[in-house]
């Protein structure tokens, strides 16, 4: 396999154990044998609760920390190597620019760190400032920027040297809906540019909206990987198909209905109600509809619900929280 054919990210049996304290050293397993492949040109989302090991994985990929064992390659180069870092754009969590930087000076400084030629740097900076919507604000001090502006500037700096792989750690964290939308648009733009984007987030809707594939990391273990649809399929056993029926009925009718099958009810405005019932087979669907009609209840709306990524995620995380999962409980504090 040549460097061009190699996956954007190739992680094999990656383990990381943190050790703390001078004398009675405690150890925390942050990653416990993670295997992961990210294909070139895709937008990949890494999901996981706080303390799952997402940032640890990114730090290892960037060479900020060393893995305890296992292998990690980026674009065919060993993770953390200078050659790999030359081709990565990184947007860190809680990005902080030096207070003396204006938007443009920050781009120039960080561009030079990426060894971008001065002439090219000037033109790229202008382009990117325009692309991220900071035109006219580039001479202002970054400390006066809003959080959304700083994130967009962060994306601009990550794109300065035209990297093949973008790694974004919580890119929409703390942003308002408009800011999130702008970031989503930028990610989409990158995808259209053919860049690989590795996204680390716990905002599931965002991931579901922009990611081609998703992995769920829980307590240092990878619990699932695939497209959002594939993930749902994979975890279908845990999340059964459900039927959502919007009806108009009396309380007495509702009581009678609840004796026929298990349901959950949610009142809606104008006397309407939304009931959700589990139906694994078509005959069960037919049975439920028959019973509703037999009681003379009008069906205003009927929908078969596929489990959302959030539900899949919560289901996976919920399982992981159960006592049988053999992960050191104290790892939470070490992994962020």
């Amino acid at each position, binding site marked *: 396999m040549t460097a061009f054919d190699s996956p954007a990210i190739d992680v094999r049996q990656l383990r990381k154990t943190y050790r703390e304290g001078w004398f009675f050293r405690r150890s925390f397993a942050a990653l416990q044998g993670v295997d992961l492949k990210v294909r070139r040109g895709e937008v990949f989302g890494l999901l996981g609760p706080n303390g799952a090991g997402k940032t640890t994985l990114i730090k290892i990929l*960037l060479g900020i920390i060393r893995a305890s064992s296992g292998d990690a390659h980026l674009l065919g180069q060993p993770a953390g190597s200078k050659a790999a870092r030359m081709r990565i754009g990184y947007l860190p969590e809680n990005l902080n620019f030096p207070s003396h930087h204006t938007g443009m000076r920050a781009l120039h400084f960080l561009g030079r760190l990426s*060894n971008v030629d001065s002439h090219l740097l000037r033109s790229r900076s202008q382009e990117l400032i325009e692309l991220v919507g900071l035109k006219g604000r580039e001479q202002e001090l970054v400390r006066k920027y809003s959080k959304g502006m700083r994130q967009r500037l962060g994306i601009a700096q990550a794109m300065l040297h035209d990297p093949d792989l973008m790694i974004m750690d919580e890119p929409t964290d703390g942003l308002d809906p408009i800011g999130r939308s702008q970031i989503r648009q930028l990610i989409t733009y990158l995808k259209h540019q053919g860049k690989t984007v590795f996204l680390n987030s716990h905002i599931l809707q965002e991931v579901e909206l922009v990611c081609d594939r998703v992995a769920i990391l829980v307590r240092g273990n990878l619990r699932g990987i695939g497209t959002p649809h594939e993930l749902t399929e994979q975890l279908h056993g845990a999340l059964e198909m459900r039927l959502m029926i919007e009806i108009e009925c009396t309380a007495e009718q509702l009581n009678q209905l609840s004796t026929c099958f298990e349901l959950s009810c949610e009142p809606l405005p104008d006397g309407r109600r939304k009931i959700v019932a589990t139906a694994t087979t078509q005959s069960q669907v037919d049975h439920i509809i028959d019973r509703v009609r037999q009681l003379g209840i009008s069906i205003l709306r009927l929908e078969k619900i596929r489990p959302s990524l959030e539900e899949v995620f919560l289901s996976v995380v919920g399982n992981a929280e159960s006592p049988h999962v053999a992960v050191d409980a104290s790892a939470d504090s070490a992994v962020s």
Partner: protein
Amino acid sequence: MMRPYLAILVDSYWEAVGNRVLWALLVCWSIVIVSLAPFGLVIEQSFELSSRDVQNRDALLQKMVRAAKGQGTQTAKAVMRCLPSDVVEDLRKRNSDSPNDQNSRRISSSRIATILNDVLDQPELYSKESFPAAELRSNIKPLIERPTSSLGREELRELNRKLLQLAFPSELHTPRGELIWIGYAGLKIGEPLGLDRRFLREIIESRVLTIIIKLGLGMATVFVAIVVTSPMIPDTFKSGSLHLLLSKPISRPLLYLFKFFGGSVFVLINITFLIVGLFLIVGWRFGIWNPGVLACIPLLLFVFIIFYSVSALVGIIWGNSVICVVACLVFWLFCTVIGALRGGFLPAVEIAPQIVRFHQVEDQLLTVTQGGSLNIWNKQYSVWQPAVDIDRMHNGRILGPIFDHQRQQLLLRADERAPFGMFWAASRKMSIVTLQSDNEPTSNHAAPASSASTSSVPKSIEEAREKSLWLVDAGPELPGLMIDFLQMGDEVVAVTRSEIRRLDRTKVELAEASEKLFFGFRPPVVGAADPFVVATPSDYTIDETVSVAVAPNGQQLFVYHSSSLDVLTFSTKTKMFDVTYKLKLDGEGSEAAILAANDEFCLVARDGLPIKVFDLELNELHSALRLPQEADVRQITSIPGSSDFSIITHLGDWYRLSSKTGQMTIVSHPWGNQCTAAMWIDADRAWLGVKPNRAVLINVASGKVEQNLAPVPTRMDSFYRWFANPLYYVNPKPAALDAAMSYLLTGKDTQSLELITTDLKTARIELEVWQPIISNSLFVIVMLAIGCIYLVRKEF
């Protein structure tokens, strides 16, 4: 390849420039420089007297009172005739012996100067009868050859001032012809300085500039700079910005190092701004264009880098700028305490015990130390025992001793010294130690006994170190402003700042019953009045800075003053000196000098100038030579049995100079550049003083050490040598860079302990110019290396 790192350097610079504190500082520095700029020297060509010209107020007043009463010299009487009658009347009423007694209004030096200034404009002061010696003075003769009426006002004042000097030669300072004030925007501040330009320059360069740069700029700038730069490293290594930087294709150690040196660029700008300002002010206002000032820029930057290396290391470990500043302060305090500990011991352990002279008295070897002790070797305990009971706490001066064979007496003068080394608390009485000939010690190193010796033998080593061997009697009164005490054959000569006096023994009446106690106290020996009589001709005066040497024949005296080498011959018939001839030398004339002579040559070594060798037969300059490393001379002695001279430098080197060929060879011995003094016994053997207080008898021809008198160290010596000094050397020492600063400002690698160098023989501290630079550089390298290793290993 270095582009990213240069970007870090430049960015660090802009980070510092963006700091408001920098601008506030620059404004402050500008205000300081602008407020300092009007300071300068106000120089007036003037012969007017100021209070500082009065050298000996009481003696001057006595002379004036006597003259007012019609007594004293013709010259003084002539001055009195020109004074207002009320002044003369006031003087006449006063007591001749104590004119400023309680019964009369006190006359200050300033008042005397004002009174005498009235004389300056009097055309009738000069008359041939009153000032017969004036015609012999080359500096007065051109003025008195012209009629007084043809002299301009300034010429008249010059003449009268020089006549006043003739009238009161040792009571007034020699006129310089100019008055110098410290001025501010052209306005004079206070009284004129009693210093000439050379001394002024020496003080400004060696002290004032050093203090300003060291304290004003060194400490203030460096600490403010550290406060400003301390957040730079912690801010860089904060998680939000650090992860971004570490994701870039750059090396962590280089990131750290370039960030570090980027912060230093900011300090460089500040320091450059200040030092260049100071350089321009000192050059423009004081006429001292010293490039050494500019050379202090990298030195101050280096001081900052030392502290910043500590701050930076703390910054990456703790990531808190407050802790960085506190760590710097703790580091500074630690270094200061260690430096002060060593500095406190240095004078007492390293400087004061240095042997500066050897004296062979009969078969006993006496040593005079830099601290002003006269010691004798105690063989029993192997220590230097005080020979006389003069306690000056290692801070004094001894002139002499002179051994009077006939009377078996040691004559000396012992002075105390003020804390800052500038002023001598002169003792008024000559110290006399009477040795008894019938109880002479038989061995060179046995404890000698004498009639004046203390009866008991020391019982312990401590007692041997402290208990003096002989008691001292107070002898006749010594002349004032005495600078040397010499033996010329059988004569004892005292050199003062204005003339040379001879001890007239016929006038000395030593109390026979000096052993008798009066109510338990030893009464002082009462001598006849003024036993030191002037031995130089009345028309011969010498200036303040004077050095003398005696020819081995004991008949000729060589005097260097005012760029003139005078050869004086002593007449045993008239008991007076005759000026045989004078040789004019280059130089300003106020330089401190050391003279030495043998039968053929006379050497004149002056501060900062080449050694001049004069041929005494031809009365002309024979050669001029410089010592290796431009070292200053500390001691020159003639070597008996040869025409060679022995030279010891302030760097501690020992040379033998062939005066005929001018060839200088280093004398081979095992102690390297640790020499302090030498006394040659013959052409091959010499006693050598080795730092700090060892004396060795060495045969330089064979290289054999015949005797080695190394005293047992005291507890203080041991503490200093085995703890304080090693700790000081191991410890980083930013403050020790002062030595390098002094070297840059003065160009000398030794520093006098005195404010002004008037005596080349005084021990100097060898400036450790390179050692602190090397040790501090190593410290910075270690600190940066630890920082780099920490960063490489650290998982952020």
